[in-house]
């Protein structure tokens, strides 16, 4: 099982890896909220290393997205793996978090 890691890069991108679930979701939320304080336009979460997202993790992503919207900002998931993309598709969230490759 991969360790969950959240790292905010110098360019403001939050790089996430590991399994996003009820145990790790608070760590991502804290980092993202801190980043939203300084981000000017769209907060990017690099999901290239995320291998699993449970329903709590999905709820947190939706919540962060809504909080960003309240500030007039955007929130984007980059590099989403196919297995996570599939979950987003199944849960009706691909509209909110569209596949960047398709745009």
């Amino acid at each position: 099982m991969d360790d969950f890691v959240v790292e905010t890069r110098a360019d403001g991108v939050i790089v996430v890896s590991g399994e996003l679930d009820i145990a790790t979701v608070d760590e991502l939320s804290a980092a993202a909220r801190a980043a939203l304080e300084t981000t000017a336009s769209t907060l990017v979460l690099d999901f290239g290393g995320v291998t699993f997202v449970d329903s709590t993790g999905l709820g947190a992503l939706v919540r962060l997205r809504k909080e960003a919207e309240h500030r007039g900002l955007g929130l984007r998931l980059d590099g989403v793996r196919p297995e996570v993309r599939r979950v987003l598709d199944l849960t009706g969230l691909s509209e909110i978090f569209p596949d960047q490759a398709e745009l």
Partner: protein
Amino acid sequence: MGAEAEPPGPSQPAARPAGPRRHPGRVAAAITLVGLVLTAGSTLATARIDRTTEQRLLDGQTRQAATVLSTAIMVIELPLQSTLAAQRASAPAGSTAPFEQVMGAQVGAGKMFQTASLWRRQGADLRLVATLGDPPALSPKAASTLTYLRHAFDTKTTTVRLVTVGSRSEVAYAHADPTSGWLVYAEREIPANRRAPVDRDSAFSQIHYAIYLGRHTTADTLSTTDVDPRTLPFHGVRSSQTVPFGDTSLTLTTTPRSRLGSDLSGALPWLLLGGGLLLTLAAARVGQRLTRDRESAEHDAATITTLYQQTETLYDQQRELFVRLQRALLPSANPELPHLEVAAEYAAGARGLDIGGDWFSVIELDGERFGFVVGDVSGRGVDAVAVMARARFTIRAYLTDGDDPVTVLEKCSQQFDILTDGHMTTALVGVGSWRTGEVTLASAGHPPPVLLGDGPPHFVEVTPGRPLGAGVAPYPVSTFTMPAGATLFCFTDGLVERRGEDIDTGLTRLADVLARAAERPVGDLVAHVLATLRHEDAPDDIATLAIRWTGES
């Protein structure tokens, strides 16, 4: 709760920590006792040292006073000795001129002697030959006087007697020269009350004194004193010196007028006593407080332990309450609907401590249609259950009002907001007809159901809209017709989701299990699927709902 601890009832007080109990009062008493003993000991020791110092000082003063007294005696004896010497040298025949010359200067009011007389012994005869000043108190005719005077010839030094006649008290001196036969007699008055004033600068200025004639210190032998004779003998710190005085001696007893040593030395015992008592009091108080604090800390620890135990108990009770709440919110019996066989099952997650928000629901809508819902609130806990209850009854209300699944979800998407609810809800909402087998479906982010009995099991194609709480959104409709005997199997993601595994793998596994069990009665089918797919350690809870349409026959 640990197996090693026996869970007590919520109201049962925790056992007090073992060990002897210290009563604050007893501790204070013990400290006070020790403090008093120490204070008394040090006070006594210091007082003793002070007393020793005082004694030493007084002894010194007394020796000094005794020297002064010796000098005074010499001053008294000197005229007597001078007279005898003069009489012997210049008037062996009988002239009294030397006596009158020497003693005349010493006798009279305010002088050393009140009276003086010259006697001459010739053979056995002892005769008074001259007298100066007042008549002597000691009668010259009395036999006792003659006996005393004869005794003076046997003594080389001055003989001294205390003479009291009436109110007069005199010290009598007799000094004789056996060779020439001359004898000088003199009397020195002492005050009737024996009181004699003391010069401020004299050796006696710092002491009270009493002078006794002889070695015995009784009222009879008292010569002079500066205190009320009735207060004698002295008490407390006292000293005495004996000074030779003619054929006898003077005993000088003294006691300090005031402190001889430094005031600090005398005050020290009292300072120690006072300070010691104060310290003892303070120590007792501190001891009492410390004991109380400790007792209270022990009590707090016991209370915290009890609270922990109570919390554990409450937690257990709460969890049980959650599970009962969850189960209460799920239908205990599905409605009897024509041409339908319905089975449903809810399985709590293995974690169990936080209750999940999965639910299922089947309702009769009218004479032809039925509604069904399977939902899943994200996250766990009592909040999730509360959101689940709201979602369940909101959806049910819209369905009962006659709304189709798409309308139901669209209306609901306006009612829920993850920012205020804290949770997001996925839901599969369907409306079917038991006359035609036609089913209309819409999904708010929920996994699609499996249709059994229409060829190989397959997932119904339904494009999911956003979960409830993720914002207002449109929901695509999905419509299909179940063949008679077909089964629609709805579930929540806990049944298929596994870590480290693609969701499609889980979905395929479910389809396979269903394919092999498709012929079973629905109740049996649901139980079998759960038993087969439910991971023993699966964290998530699972809701399943199977609806078989038997068709109109």
